[in-house]
């Protein structure tokens, strides 16, 4: 592979003479359009978040964040993520394990069902839980009689978030697990390791980065989910408002700087997620190249 890298560059060099490249004018026009598109659609919205958040000064920014209602929203969002992410990691690992390491009927159906939350509108997802647990829902009267509140309370928010973020980990892990195959686990088993030891020492290290990747994506969505949560939360200020819902409420109260202050935290989270993701991709590419280079030198 190290060989192909040098081959690629030499190819590119020769290619320009063979007429497989656009003329410099076309090339720079295309680049400029792409850059302009990115500037308007990616950079400007991002800069605008922070610009508006600090438009009334640093003190106002801090005050809007420590306002009791916003503070409660931040705490609730963290709580929801702390419950949701581990649950979905557990499920994601189990599902990916079942799909990648075993053969059974209905496998493709299982994969389709796992992907389902991605193709359902978040609003419809929220509605499903209202239909199930709401006062007019199937379990509503039973829950009401026992004074258990799910819809318009924290459990409903958690359930809706779990539903929406549920494919992320499994989706990242299935291809990784399929690629590594089952030989290593079988070797560990024949050497006398039990299932748990095999998982901990053999499977986990091989899926480590895919798992981290899935977790950060799942977390970003769990903290940022709006549609599904907005349907089930009931918008009780200070009690069932998550950060995105708080942003909406502040905006509707014509308090845009405060809305942007809360939004800026979410934007930071998005940037952090992107940063980790890019780092992981870069690291994987580097590790891969190194391993290939070692193979190459060993062959020589």
């Amino acid at each position, binding site marked *: 592979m190290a060989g192909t890298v040098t081959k690629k560059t030499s190819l590119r060099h020769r290619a320009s003479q063979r007429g497989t490249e656009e003329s410099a004018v076309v090339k720079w026009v295309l680049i400029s359009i792409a850059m302009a598109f990115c500037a308007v659609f990616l950079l400007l919205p991002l800069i605008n978040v922070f610009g508006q958040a600090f438009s009334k000064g640093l003190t106002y920014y801090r005050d809007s964040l420590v306002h009791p209602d916003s503070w409660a929203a931040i705490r609730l969002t963290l709580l929801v993520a702390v419950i949701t992410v581990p649950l979905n990691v557990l499920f994601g690992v189990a599902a990916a394990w079942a799909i990648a390491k075993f053969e059974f009927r209905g496998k493709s159906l299982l994969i389709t069902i796992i992907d389902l939350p991605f193709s359902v509108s978040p609003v419809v997802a929220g509605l499903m839980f209202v239909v199930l647990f709401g006062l007019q829902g199937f379990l509503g009267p039973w829950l009401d009689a026992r004074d258990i509140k799910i819809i318009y309370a924290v459990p409903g928010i958690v359930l809706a978030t779990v539903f929406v973020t549920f494919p992320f980990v499994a989706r990242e892990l299935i291809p990784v697990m399929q690629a590594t195959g089952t030989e290593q686990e079988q070797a560990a088993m024949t050497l006398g390791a039990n299932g748990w030891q095999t998982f901990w020492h053999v499977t986990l290290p091989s899926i480590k980065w895919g798992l981290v990747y899935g977790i950060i994506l799942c977390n970003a969505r769990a903290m940022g989910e709006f549609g599904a949560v907005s349907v089930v939360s009931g918008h009780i200020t200070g009690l069932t408002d998550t950060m995105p819902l708080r942003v909406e409420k502040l905006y509707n109260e014509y308090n845009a700087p405060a809305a942007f202050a809360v*939004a800026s935290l979410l934007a930071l989270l998005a940037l952090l997620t992107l940063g980790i993701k890019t780092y992981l991709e870069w690291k994987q590419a580097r590790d891969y190249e190194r391993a290939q280079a070692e193979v190459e030198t060993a062959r020589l």
Partner: protein
Amino acid sequence: MGFTLFYLSAIVLIPFGGLILRACETSLGEFWRLATTERALAAYKLTFGASLCAAVANAIFGTLLAWVLVRYEFPGRRFIDAMVDFPFALPTAVAGLTLANLFAPQGWLGQFLVPLGIKGAYTPLGVVIALTFVGMPFVVRTLQPVIESLERDVEEAAASLGASRFRTFLSVIAPTLMPALLTGFALAFARAIGEYGSIVFISGNLPFKTEIAPYLIVMRLEEYDYAGAIALAVVLLMFSFVLLGCINLLEQWASRFQR
């Protein structure tokens, strides 16, 4: 395995079943009446129309962006490549908030665009803008690997046979990209149909004018009109299933193309 199935049914299948069961409780005629009220029809029209416009915009700019990112070297390429996923990572509410603010009459872009008659906030155009933002990564990310794997030899052959660069692109490169482009287009379209968070901020949600179907569901729920909300939800669900089926077929087609 048992755990997987249990969790899956608890979180996904039971809520699904509940919704469908409730939908079956209303008679067919009643369901039809609820799903096709005039307000609902206007909402479908806007949802599908705006999603289609946004998906087309994404197909054009996404192809261009993917091509530029793979084929050219220029300062800031890696940065833009990483930033393409930004709309995925940014919570939709924040996206809607900042876009609405940008295109509002006093906003950074609005102050120049509104005098020109381009009103981005609280209009159907705003809906298209938000949906374009949200669906942007799909086309780029499905096309990038395909462009990377293109064989340069084929282009060289075309060039040596006397084809101009434009001709090569149209008759050699474009057909190879088609399946992936359509997949990305369908993914962006599907995402746009269900989108809610970003639209609420930018559209203004005026019935018959800038009200999208998911917002109408929320409105029906707030009026405690469960049957109405469920009827609309079922229509949206059926549509996303049809699209999901199309995407699966397209992906099969695309992977056959690769080999």
